[in-house]
C-alpha cells in the first residue's frame, strides 16, 4: 500500500484513459459552445441584454455540460470489471474514488473553465468579470464533479440511470449555481466578488471531505445490487 492509498494511481489511470479517448473529451466542450450559440438566437443579439444574462447562463451551461459527462464516471469501470478490482483492493475505497473525482474535474471542469473566456466574449461580459468567472468556474466545476460522483455511484446499477442521475443531483447543485453566478454578477455590479467565491471554496472543502465517503458507500452497494 502506498502513501496516497491509490489516489495517484487512479488519478493517472483516468487521465491516461481520457487522453487515449480524446474524442470524448471534446463533447462537453462542444455542448457548452453550442448551447451558448442558442442563447443569442433564442433571445436577442443585443450586447446589453446578453451581458445581463451572461453570469447566470454561463453557469447553467457549465452545470449541464458537467452533468452530461458525469454518468460515465464509474459506468465504464463497472462494465469492464475494474471497479470490482477497486472494491476488493486493500486500500481504503475513499482514496481511489477521490482520485477519480479529481481526474473528472481535470478532464471536464478545467477545459470548460479555460474555454469560458470565449463565451464571456460572445456574451459581451465586462472585462472586470473575466477573472471572477474563471476562478468561480475552476472551483465550482470541481464541486460539480464531486457532488455528481455521488449521484453517478447511486444510479450505477440502474439500466437507465442517466435521467434519474440528473434529477437526483440537480437540487444538490443549486447552492453551487447560486454562489457561482453570484461571483460573476457581483463583479459585474462592482461589488466584492471575493465573498461568494470564498463560500464556493468552503463548500468545496466540505465536498472533498464528505462526497468520497458517500460515493464509496454507494459503490459498495452497486456491486451487490
Amino acid at each position, binding site marked *: 500500500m502506498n502513501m496516497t492509498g491509490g489516489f495517484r494511481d487512479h488519478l493517472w489511470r483516468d487521465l491516461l484513459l481520457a487522453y487515449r479517448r480524446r474524442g470524448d473529451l471534446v463533447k462537453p466542450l462542444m455542448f457548452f459552445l453550442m448551447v451558448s450559440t442558442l442563447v443569442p438566437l433564442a433571445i436577442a443579439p443585443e450586447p446589453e441584454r446578453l451581458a445581463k444574462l451572461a453570469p447566470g447562463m454561463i453557469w447553467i451551461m457549465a452545470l449541464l455540460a458537467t452533468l452530461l459527462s458525469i454518468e460515465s464516471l464509474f459506468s465504464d469501470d463497472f462494465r469492464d470489471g475494474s471497479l470490482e478490482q477497486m472494491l476488493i483492493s486493500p486500500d481504503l475505497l475513499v482514496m481511489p474514488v477521490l482520485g477519480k473525482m479529481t481526474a473528472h474535474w481535470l478532464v471536464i471542469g478545467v477545459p470548460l473553465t479555460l474555454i469560458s473566456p470565449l463565451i464571456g466574449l460572445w456574451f459581451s461580459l465586462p472585462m472586470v468579470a473575466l477573472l471572477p468567472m474563471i476562478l468561480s468556474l475552476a472551483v465550482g466545476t470541481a464541486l460539480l464533479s464531486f457532488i455528481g460522483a*455521488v449521484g453517478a455511484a*447511486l*444510479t450505477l*446499477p*440502474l439500466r*437507465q*440511470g442517466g435521467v*434519474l442521475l440528473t*434529477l*437526483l443531483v*440537480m*437540487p*444538490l447543485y*443549486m*447552492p453551487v449555481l*447560486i*454562489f457561482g453566478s*453570484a461571483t460573476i*454578477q*457581483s463583479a459585474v455590479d462592482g461589488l466584492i466578488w471575493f465573498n461568494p467565491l470564498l*463560500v464556493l471554496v468552503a*463548500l468545496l472543502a*466540505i465536498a472533498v471531505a*464528505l462526497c468520497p465517503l*458517500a460515493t464509496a*458507500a*454507494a459503490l459498495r*452497494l452497486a456491486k*451487490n*445490487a
Partner: protein
Amino acid sequence: MLNMQWTWFHRLGSPRWFYQKTQRWLPWLSAITAVLLLVGLVWGLAFAPQDAKQGNSFRIIYLHVPASFLALVGYYIMAISGAVGLIWRIKLSFMVMKSAAPIGAALTFVALFTGAVWGKPTWGAYWVWDARITSMLILLFLYLGILALRYTFSVSEASDRASAILGLVGTVNVPIIYKSVDWWQTLHQPATIKLTGAPSMHPDMFAPLLLMIIGFYGFYFLTLMLFTRAEILHRERKASWVRELVSKKRAEV
C-alpha cells in the same frame, strides 16, 4: 447492564413487535389527533381575530405553517431513520424511511400549494421567488429524487440503502440550500416581501396555530405509523406471524 440497556433498542427494531405495539397506540393517537385538528381548525378559522392588514385571508396560515413545519421535520425523520438503518442494519427503520418519503413529499406540496393560494391576495401573485418558497421547492425536488430512486431499483434492499445514502447527502445539503437561497434572496431582491412572523402574532391568533402544529405532528406520526404497518405486512408477508394474522382476519369475516 449493557445488555439491559440495548434490549429495548433491538426489540424496537423488530417489525413484529412494532406492529403489535402500535396496534394499541393507534386508537389513542388518532383520537388525540382528531380532537387537536378539529379544535385548532374551528378555533383558527372561525373564532381567531381577523388580521389587521390581510383580513380573513391570513387564516390559511393554520394549514400552511404546520404543513411546512412537518415537511422539513419529516425530511430529517426520514434521513435519520435511513441512517439508523445503514448503521445498525435495522430492517424496521428502512421501512419507516420508505413510509416517510411520500408523506413528506405530500406535506411539502401542501405547503407550496397553500402558500400560492395565500400569495395571491397578499402579494398579488401566485408565485414569487421568495427565499422560503424557493427552499420549499428544492425540498420537494429532494423528496421526489428519493421517491424516484426508490421506484427504479428492483431489489428492495439495495433501494433501501441507496435512498438512505441519498437522504444523508440531502441532510447535509438542506441547511446549505436554505442559507444559500436566503443569501441569494438578499442579493437580488430588496426585502419588500415579508411573511408575518409567528413571534409578532397576537396570542389569540397564535394559540390555535400552536394547536394545529401539535395536531399536525400527531397526524404525521399517525400516517407514518399506518404506512409503516402496511409496509411491514407487505415485506413480512411470508413470515408465520403475518400469515396467522391474515388467516385470523379471514376467519372473522
